[in-house]
């Protein structure tokens, strides 16, 4: 029996639930993870990733020293380098000086907006706050974004349009207080496993009724009273038809609408055309199911809606999210305990990274960059001359890559993201990446994006540094150092401090420094608290045992579990008239199947973490799910190798014939580089949120032979739900 020489309480680095972990380490090796049973988000329960998914920290492929390319890369001919013999180890001084010279030179030559930065929703609030501070204060650009653009941007923009906010309105654990709740576009059991078990308890122990609206027969359908299996991309039609029913049958909450909303009449008029019959024709969901679901939700005492990327990752993601928000505004299922509009955030710290201002249009705390008031506030805080900060909105994640083609963006600084797995239409994105002049990657592994870099900076994992994560229900929780940094790796915030000091010196700003002399991560959070009212009362001492839910307006403020109890940030909530717009790429004779993408329980997004550990043995290969009817038509058998092709690319992988998917729809998870779903996806964007349409594109499937598979010897040993 092994006794730990160090036990550290920290927060899980995977999804947005924010589970509390106790890391048991001996000789700097984490051999076991447990969770305290009084933990506020997870009550001692964990999922496979939280309990077992930390061996990536020790993986031999992890980079433990700064690296530079042996061969200098030129725009146009830039190539990926995965093998260490294409790189040379250098000292931190050498690496940071080189980056300082190149970035300042490019910025001087090609202008401030020729640089762009990717922040990281896996990193801490402190890491991200400093990255945006470096981009804005030193390079004077707002070209900084992160993966929220690729996941919940549609929801965020819709919530801002309708309510003036952009977070979950309630606490996830309140699900047991719902009597009716809707899950849509969320495979909750695999993507938010701990919230899913609380949802199962809500149904089985507390008698709640669940309505699942999803094109896949996800695990939560087992718990559901109703499953509305809509065609991908028809969300606006379906939810607006529910609104239509609520309006026609006068099931709406008139007092709430009168007291707390505006633009109701124009909205109600726009809902006239969304008859249930129209919605059935578009979405394939029968009229009576639509009517029943509308009645069930509208008549609930405490109704709530939970959604994720099935709603937002669409060329009309903002409209999709608005159509859901309308249901809550019509019925008044918001602003009270046990109700709410709850976009479940994917990453452990995507909420915090957004809050920390890793956003091209916003300073920390969603203060607009194009407003003089907020710019002056930050100029003063960072001792920058008046008018020094850029008032120009920056480019979003996808726009940054596109701007490489036009030469607008010349250099990219990537902190812990992997756009070469997560961007849509990857073959095209690869071509764009080659055009860049200089790339810095700051990560644990040379992933598909880091392989394009000129300089690679080894950063620490979450177990090797201090900081805070903000989880899906806005709870700021501590991350604590459990082991010493491996090799020469350093925490992201410390790398940025070091680099920023060199850049500041190099640029010889007249005396005034924006300040980079942070001695501990807490000092950074304090600075953020001074600039972001919602974080003003968050200190490490206050969140020592239990995290606080933002807004925390001062040091005595208790935090805010439920938002909008009295008013919305925009005062009144606003209804938005909607039109139904079909998806960008529809099926035709040549490409007759709809591809939808997503995740599996065992893997995290692009796989930088989970594919470097034993989790990959549980789920070693991506499978394409195809409905038995389609499989029979195409002559595809379970386990058979197939080619899946779209107009943009082809992948080869094994088929899983299952009624987990619906006729005409195939599903591929995007974790696998060998069969990368994003080779197929389409790079068309939502007009407001600039989020790509990952969930819908047209593909065809043809039988392939075993030899065509990237790894024919790798075969999943087990099937799961």
């Amino acid at each position, binding site marked *: 029996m092994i006794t730990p020489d160090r036990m550290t309480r920290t927060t899980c680095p995977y999804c947005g639930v924010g589970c509390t972990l106790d890391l048991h380490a001996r000789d700097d090796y984490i*051999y076991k993870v447990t969770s305290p*049973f009084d933990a506020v988000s997870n009550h001692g*329960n964990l999922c496979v990733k939280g309990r077992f998914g930390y061996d990536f920290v020790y993986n031999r492929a992890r980079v433990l020293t700064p690296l530079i390319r042996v061969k200098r890369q030129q725009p146009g001919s830039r190539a990926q380098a995965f093998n260490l013999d294409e790189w040379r180890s250098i000292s931190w001084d050498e690496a940071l000086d080189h980056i300082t010279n190149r970035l300042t030179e490019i910025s001087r030559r090609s202008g401030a907006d020729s640089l762009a930065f990717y922040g990281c929703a896996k990193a801490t609030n402190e890491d991200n706050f400093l990255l945006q501070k470096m981009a804005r204060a030193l390079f004077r650009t707002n070209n900084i974004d992160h993966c929220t653009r690729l996941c919940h941007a549609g929801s965020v923009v819709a919530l801002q349009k309708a309510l003036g906010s952009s977070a979950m309105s309630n606490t996830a654990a309140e699900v047991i207080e719902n009597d009716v709740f809707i899950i849509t576009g969320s495979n909750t059991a695999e993507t938010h*496993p701990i919230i899913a078990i609380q949802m199962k308890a809500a149904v089985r122990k507390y008698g709640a009724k669940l309505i699942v609206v999803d094109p896949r027969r996800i695990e939560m359908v087992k718990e559901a009273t109703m499953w509305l299996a809509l065609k991908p991309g028809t969300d606006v039609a379906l939810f607006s038809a529910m609104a239509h029913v609520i309006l026609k049958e006068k099931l709406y909450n008139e007092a709430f609408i009168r007291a707390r909303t505006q633009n109701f009449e124009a909205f109600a008029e726009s809902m006239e055309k969304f008859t249930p019959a129209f919605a059935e024709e578009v979405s394939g969901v029968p009229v009576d199911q639509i009517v029943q679901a509308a009645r069930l939700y509208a008549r609930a005492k405490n109704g709530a809606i939970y959604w994720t990327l099935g709603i937002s990752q669409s060329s009309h993601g903002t409209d999709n999210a608005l159509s859901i928000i309308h249901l809550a505004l019509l019925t008044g299922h918001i602003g009270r305990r046990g109700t709410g509009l709850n976009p479940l955030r994917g990453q452990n710290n995507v909420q915090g990274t957004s809050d920390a201002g890793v956003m091209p249009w916003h300073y920390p705390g969603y203060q607009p960059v194009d407003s003089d008031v907020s710019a002056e506030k930050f100029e003063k805080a960072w001792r920058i001359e008046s008018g020094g900060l850029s008032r120009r909105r920056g480019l979003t994640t996808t726009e940054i890559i596109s701007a490489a083609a036009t030469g607008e963006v010349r250099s990219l600084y990537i902190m812990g993201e992997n756009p070469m797995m997560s961007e849509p239409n990857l073959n095209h994105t690869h071509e764009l990446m080659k055009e860049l002049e200089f790339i810095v990657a700051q990560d644990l592994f040379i992933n598909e994006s880091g392989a394009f870099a000129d300089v690679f900076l080894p950063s620490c994992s979450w177990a090797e540094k201090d900081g805070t994560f903000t989880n899906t229900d806005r709870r700021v929780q501590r991350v604590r150092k459990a082991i010493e940094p491996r090799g020469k790796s350093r925490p992201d915030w410390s790398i940025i401090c070091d680099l920023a000091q060199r850049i500041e010196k190099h640029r010889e700003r007249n005396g005034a420094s924006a300040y980079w002399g942070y001695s501990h991560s807490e000092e950074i959070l304090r600075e953020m608290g001074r600039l972001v009212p919602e974080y003003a009362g968050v200190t490490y001492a206050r969140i020592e045992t239990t995290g606080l839910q933002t807004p925390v307006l001062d040091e005595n403020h208790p935090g805010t579990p439920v938002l909008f109890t009295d008013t919305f940030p925009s005062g009144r909530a606003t209804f938005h008239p909607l039109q139904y717009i079909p998806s960008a790429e529809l099926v035709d004779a040549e490409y007759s199947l709809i591809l939808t993408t997503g995740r599996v329980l065992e893997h995290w997004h692009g796989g930088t973490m989970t594919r470097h550990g*034993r989790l990959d043995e549980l789920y070693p290969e991506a499978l394409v799910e195809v409905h038995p009817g389609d499989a029979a038509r195409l002559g595809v058998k379970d386990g058979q190798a197939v080619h899946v092709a779209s107009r943009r690319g082809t992948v080869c992988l094994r088929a899983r014939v299952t009624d987990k998917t619906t006729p005409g729809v195939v599903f591929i998870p995007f974790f696998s580089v*060998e069969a990368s779903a994003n080779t197929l996806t389409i790079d068309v964007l939502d007009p407001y949120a600039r989020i790509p349409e990952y969930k819908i594109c047209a593909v065809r499937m043809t039988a392939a032979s075993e030899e065509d598979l*990237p790894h024919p010897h790798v075969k999943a040993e*087990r099937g799961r739900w």
Partner: protein
Amino acid sequence: MSEPIFLTIDDTVVSVEPEATILQAATRIGIRIPTMCYHKATTSCAICRLCVVEVEGSRALIPSCVASAGPGMVVHTRTARVERVRRTILEMLASSIDLSEAPELQAHMRDYSVDITRYSGCQRRCPPILDDNPMYIRDYAKCVLCWRCVQVCAEDAQYTYAINFSGRGFETLISTFYDRPIMESTCVFCGQCLGVCPTNALKPKREWLLEQGQSLDEIIETTRIEKRTCMSRLADPSSEPERKQP
């Protein structure tokens, strides 16, 4: 709220809400009753009988983890009769099960002056260690059948129902259905079972390998992903001729 009730535990009067168990009432006034199958995260089911107490007027000993506190009840938590029962339970467990990694039970055994030789020569339960998945091992020679793992796999947490009792009497074990390997069961590898196991019968694979004397390097070496050389390449048929290599 309903009125609190009063009862006497070991000569001390305690007031509790009517739903409280005797165990909760005793804990409130600092009286420690030993438990084994009880866990605050699982539904109490009084399987192990270690927490029995004597209640005046009651013929049998009462399991305090499930029995409600009653008004006017007079409870004795450590009479000679109670002690003898607890000691015997622990001696019987120790005679057939490996309790070497169960610190709480070890403490109870010291507390109750358990004589581990009392049933010496008994048949010991020693099924082989089950190492059938990448995440955890199952060493049922250490299992005291407290049922907590089954409970958290089912309604007390995960609703997965991958494991349950199998066999009867001495042959009873925790098992998947038809004793299939874990990989073929409904297990989602959440490891809630590991979180509540009181005897370390369930253990992360990494911890177990470390105990077997493997070095950190050796443990990492066994991770299969290491052996793949070209995982980090986009599968693009035109540009990757070597992609089929393992």
